[in-house]
């Protein structure tokens, strides 16, 4: 199964409520997937600053002097803001790539969850309620966000197998379904030099989109071509720095409901996830069409 929720705010007044609304939506979807949960939040954009969100199974050991140790490898200041097993490292945006390679040397056990100007991804094994609480998601504000609760079918229940997947700077992907050609596609992408870490099918989907975009496709073009190249079942929700997109495979057996008002566009695997949103009674509610790319931008 798996449950997906997404919220793209048009009304800036709702931005302080983003974390609370997304948490409520995600917790409602718990019985679609109790294995792991994750959330991607697009926060405020600070000029020339970028964020590296990283995870460690031993945060006390790894995060202690991380900002200071990293400062030795990059120019400019590095700040660190820890939440449970994750920490957000903020620095000059042009230093993110250097910091990422330095991290491999100085903290080999630390895993990168996301890279971008505004994106932060938090994900762990456990119920949505517990994961959201550990990372205090309800307190986060932002312009848009995506949440996922996983019922694993294709690979192990681990932090790295949890969604969302970071597909490129400020880009993320969540998936409900299962890809059946992920092994052959993984081999093909690895031959092209694409780094794929796990045996997870969705990571291959995410890597595929990243690879397409690195080769000149726009996100919506990459999503269009995924309909040709990916075999299996999928409802994808993707996030970009200023946008939010949805695509379902042509068979469309994985559920999806969308709602739009003057204040927001919302996505839920089921209508249940949307029932507490403001003004939902008068929202335009519909089921996204199969094999059709939907996209909203700020």
């Amino acid at each position, binding site marked *: 199964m798996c449950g997906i929720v997404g919220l793209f705010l048009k009304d800036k007044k709702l931005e302080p409520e983003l974390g609370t609304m997304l948490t409520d939506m995600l917790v409602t979807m718990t019985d679609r997937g109790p294995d792991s949960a994750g959330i991607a939040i697009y926060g405020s954009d600070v000029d020339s600053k970028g964020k590296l969100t990283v995870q460690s199974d031993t945060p006390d050991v790894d995060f202690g002097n991380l900002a200071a140790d990293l400062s030795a490898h990059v120019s400019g200041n590095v700040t660190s803001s820890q939440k449970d097993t994750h920490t957000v490292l903020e620095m000059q945006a042009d230093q993110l790539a250097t910091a990422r390679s330095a991290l491999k040397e100085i903290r080999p056990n630390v895993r990168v969850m996301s890279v971008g100007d505004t994106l932060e991804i938090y994900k762990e094994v456990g119920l949505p309620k517990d994961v959201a609480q550990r990372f205090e998601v309800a307190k986060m504000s932002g312009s848009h966000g995506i949440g996922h609760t996983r019922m694993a079918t294709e690979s192990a229940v681990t932090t790295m197998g949890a969604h969302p997947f970071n597909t490129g700077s400020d880009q993320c992907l969540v998936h409900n379904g299962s890809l059946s050609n992920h092994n052959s596609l993984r081999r093909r992408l690895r031959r092209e030099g694409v780094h794929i870490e796990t045996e997870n099918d969705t990571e291959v989907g995410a890597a595929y989109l990243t690879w397409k975009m690195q080769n000149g496709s726009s996100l919506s073009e990459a999503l269009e071509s995924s309909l040709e190249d990916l075999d299996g079942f999928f409802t994808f929700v993707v996030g970009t720095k200023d946008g939010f997109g949805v695509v379902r495979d042509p068979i*469309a057996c994985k559920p999806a409901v969308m709602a739009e008002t003057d204040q927001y566009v919302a996505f839920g695997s089921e209508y249940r996830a949307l029932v507490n949103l403001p003004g939902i009674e008068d929202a335009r509610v519909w089921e996204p069409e199969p094999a059709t790319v939907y996209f909203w931008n700020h």
Partner: protein
Amino acid sequence: MQTFDLADSDLRTLNSTLHAQNDDTNQTAWTIENPKGAHAIACGLDAPIEVTIKGSTGYYSAGMNQQATVNIKGSAGPGVAENMMSGKVVIDGDASQYAGATGHGGLLVVKGNASSRCGISMKGINIVVHGNIGHMSAFMAQSGNLVVCGDAGDALGDSCYEARMFVRGSVKSLGADCEEKEMRPEHLEILKDLLEQAESDAKPEEFKRYGSARNLYNFNIDNAY
């Protein structure tokens, strides 16, 4: 009129209360408040009662219905009125995938659109959709009538048996062994009756009829891979 508020009480209590009604019940009108997309609302009813759900429902609402009339004053999630035996289910909004699947009897009315696999494997149910239906509708449909006042998606009636499909608008594509058929007077009569029951003002003459070409009934080596 009995009112049941799902904000205050649980679904199991609601459904078991409805199941406890028999043919002689005096409590024939029920209203359900705050459905909020919950699953399996008013499933398995078997009494001549009328249930009105004031909002949208989740998976499998009004499934396995017998005798009862269920009105959904919103949209319905996947599998609404699945395996209905008799009675009537009316949805004011849209229905998600496989609405009325495997239904043996009764009438399902969708006043909005129905998505994919509407009436899949239907076995005698009548379905009237005021709007459009999605792909793979009436797949392996065995008997009954599927009436679509709007358009039909891809692969309508794939591998169907003896169900009748009536579509007023366009059909994106026909499934394997499904073909357009002659509309005879008896079909116009069936349509007139169903459209009236479904409160549609569409005219029977505006529809085309589709059904099985009957080429997949018997083993044919040319159909094998």
